[in-house]
């Protein structure tokens, strides 16, 4: 089928490798991927900062970009941005008195899936090793981002898929349900509280002994990775799409310090 990729602004600008991994996985499954060129951002940063008026043209832009192309489903490698489409965009359009855009936003949101939900619930992927050829022989821990967990109710889809990757060993992260402290502009408006939160997250990650931390939202991973880097830690972060995209033939390169997992396959 034809899948429209919503890269999200932060992946587009800072983590293109995550969008490329997403394209890789979907093309490997034989699907056609398109990238609606008008897309930019879901507007979440503006909405969550209270700038509703400024968010409105961004919402309109997204709705238009994803309405003028024909596709079966849209996908984004982010729980937070997908949640924002359904949760905030219609609210912002209505706030501006634009019912037509609100309804169009609901329609686009209804067709946009977070990557793991698309893979499991629509495409029937339950074994990454067998169905995607995913191979990643490392010990990894996994951070569950709040919006995927609480707004999209993704449950354990992301970590379960990661568990089915050949060679991978997953170490459970203590206090997995705790926020990493990102929260968009919260991270600098309440820098000290946010800093204390991410410090605890980093300590929990380090306690697992894993050298890699994965997750489904690069914003949280940027926060966690940035704090790890500041601390001089060897632990690196990566999006789970990158793990799924990694194969024996074309393995994902990881920082030299990451130890190779001892378990043989899954």
């Amino acid at each position, binding site marked *: *089928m034809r899948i429209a990729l919503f*890269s999200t*602004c932060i992946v*587009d*600008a800072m983590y*293109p490798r995550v*969008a490329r991994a997403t394209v890789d996985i979907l093309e490997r499954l034989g699907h056609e991927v398109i*990238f*609606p*060129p008008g897309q930019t951002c879901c507007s979440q*940063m*503006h909405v*969550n*900062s*209270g*700038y509703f008026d400024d968010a409105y*043209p*961004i919402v*309109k832009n997204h709705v238009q970009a994803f309405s003028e192309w*024909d596709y*079966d*489903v849209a996908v984004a490698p982010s729980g937070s941005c997908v949640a924002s489409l359904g949760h*905030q965009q219609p609210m912002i359009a209505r706030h501006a008195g634009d019912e037509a855009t609100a309804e169009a936003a609901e329609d686009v949101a209804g*067709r946009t899936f977070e990557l793991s*939900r698309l893979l*499991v*619930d*629509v495409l029937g992927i339950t074994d990454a090793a067998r169905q995607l050829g995913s191979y990643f022989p490392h010990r990894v821990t996994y951070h569950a981002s*709040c919006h995927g967990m*609480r707004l999209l109710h993704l449950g*354990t*889809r992301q*970590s*379960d898929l990661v*568990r089915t990757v050949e060679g991978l060993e997953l170490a*459970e992260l*203590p206090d*997995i349900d705790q*926020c990493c402290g*990102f929260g*968009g*502009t919260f*991270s*600098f*408006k*309440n*820098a*000290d*509280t946010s800093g*204390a*939160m991410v*410090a605890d997250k980093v300590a*929990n990650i380090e*306690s*697992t002994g894993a050298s890699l931390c994965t997750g489904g939202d690069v914003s949280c991973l*940027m926060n966690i990775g*940035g*704090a790890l*880097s*500041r601390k001089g830690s060897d632990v690196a972060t990566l999006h789970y799409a990158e793990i799924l995209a990694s194969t024996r033939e074309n393995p994902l390169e990881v920082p030299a310090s990451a130890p190779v997992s001892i378990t043989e396959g899954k």
Partner: protein
Amino acid sequence: MSVTQLGMPKVFHGSGNIVADEPFPDFARRELKNEQLRANLGFATHTIRSKRASVVGELPDWQELRTAGSEIKQRVMARLPELLEQFEENVTARGGQVHWARDAEEANRIALDLIRAEGAEEIIKIKSMATQETGLNEYLAEHGVGAVETDLAEEIVQMGEDKPSHILVPAIHRNRTEIRDIFLKRMPGVDPGLTDNPPELADASRRHLREKFFRTGVAVSGANFGVADTGTLAVVESEGNGRMCLTLPDTLITFMGIEKLVPTFEDLEVFFQLLPRSSTGERMNPYTSLWSGRTEGDGPQNLHVILLDNGRTAALADEVGRQALHCIRCSACMNVCPVYERAGGHAYGSTYPGPIGAILSPLLTGVEDRSNNSLPYASSLCGACYEACPVKINIPDVLVHLRGKDVDARHGKGEGGRKRRMPDQMDAMMAGAKAAFSNASLLSLAERGLPAGKLAAGRKHRISKLPGVVSGWTQYRDVPEPPAQSFRHWWKKNRQNGTRQRPAGERADVEAMIEANAGLADELHERFAAEAEEQQRAADRAALEAKVEEKEEVQAGVSRELDAGGDGPRDTEAGSTEPERPKPAAEKIARAASEEAGPGSDLSDKGPGRADPEPKGNAPMESEEER
């Protein structure tokens, strides 16, 4: 009271102890440096979280109960004026008197007049947030009337001339030694040889209060619920001191926020299930007192209810915000809140701390009152509060809504009609991002600048200092090196989109695919659940044990300092020294004491999802629920 012109009907905002005088981030910065407070909060919140999770997990109909609670409260808000009148009628018919107070000042004045009419110089009190909100104790003191708090933790706060920092554990910021010192200094007739042993502290408090219960003729209480169709009032507590206050004095004055109503007596059933599990993690509440008017020759003969508005009708007028009035003050939201866990309750500057405080205080006062506009930003919007809230208050949504109101007000729009202030860095950043995000060509152009960022990152491949408003980011974290090109540009070079429209026949039947895969996610989950959950429990337990250790280490440090005559940060075991009620209290103290002795060993078989009939280590949490 501040009155805001909104064109037409006047909005009466609340006053009293519901306004932050200092912006949240500034207060939080200082509190974060208090290692003892952080260790206490970290330990206490984690313990109560797992206790709550385990008792909530026992009820198969928990979500239905939450929905029922939320719906009852929605109905109350929709018919509030009518229900209030019905309540007044029924209280009056049963021999009580109802007084209406528009704000804190009015409520306090009414109470003072009633107390003076009885000729009382001192009153006893049950822990009540409504009277904290109005600042009743201070008001009475100014007018020569003493008020004695009978909830132990509240008593400690009061004697220490302090402010509560948690709804359930008001003195969580105090340690045992401090409590002993406070008692020695302030408690009349106290044994000068008093030690900081919890049972001894509890005993001292019991003796002190007993005497007050028998001697005092006027009590002031709050109310957890008021029942419209019977005029019944309900107080929910766990020490038993509340019941003494409700039954022994001749005159009982009850402060009740107008939102505390439920339509019928039967509705209580829902809340009596929701409240204890959410607040103290108990299956049933220990002391639930209900009274419907006056009973000749039994209990108080003069019954008064002061119905408090204090900004509640202003909150009710806010379509998104009004759900904050559903709150039953269980404190679950603060116990699960990662921000509260670090910053503590005082940082919210109000009677109402934590996530509910971050929305309720600005709703009551108007978002632009002093520093209350900093409260809606005191959240990462992680949603843990909404998930825990027994009446399903969507706190994150209300936070975002209030941020919108704040930005509007700052820009001279909407409520308050303040003068537009000069655009600041945040405005400029948002305006710039708006321009780029509204137009993909502009964004594409901006992304051509990525290599410059890469250059800035230099050989270390990271950026360690950002300027201006975003400098807070690099206070605690680096920024990764930007990529050489954006995804958009990579796509343009490497892929081509197909045609905009496809022939209809090429479309996939997505719904059929989803239908075909129904249940797959659950199957996948089941495949790993048992092992994963087991490991998760072990990991969480290790983390909690580390918290206990940390708390002990800090405490040991404090003790060493105290021994050396220093004056470092202090520990708290405030609520652990329960007075009254010999049996359960004694158990709790024993538990707290054993926890003091060797807490790690008590945590061996705990974890979410497991029923734990006598969970240990939560003793400091036990106090009363709130009215």
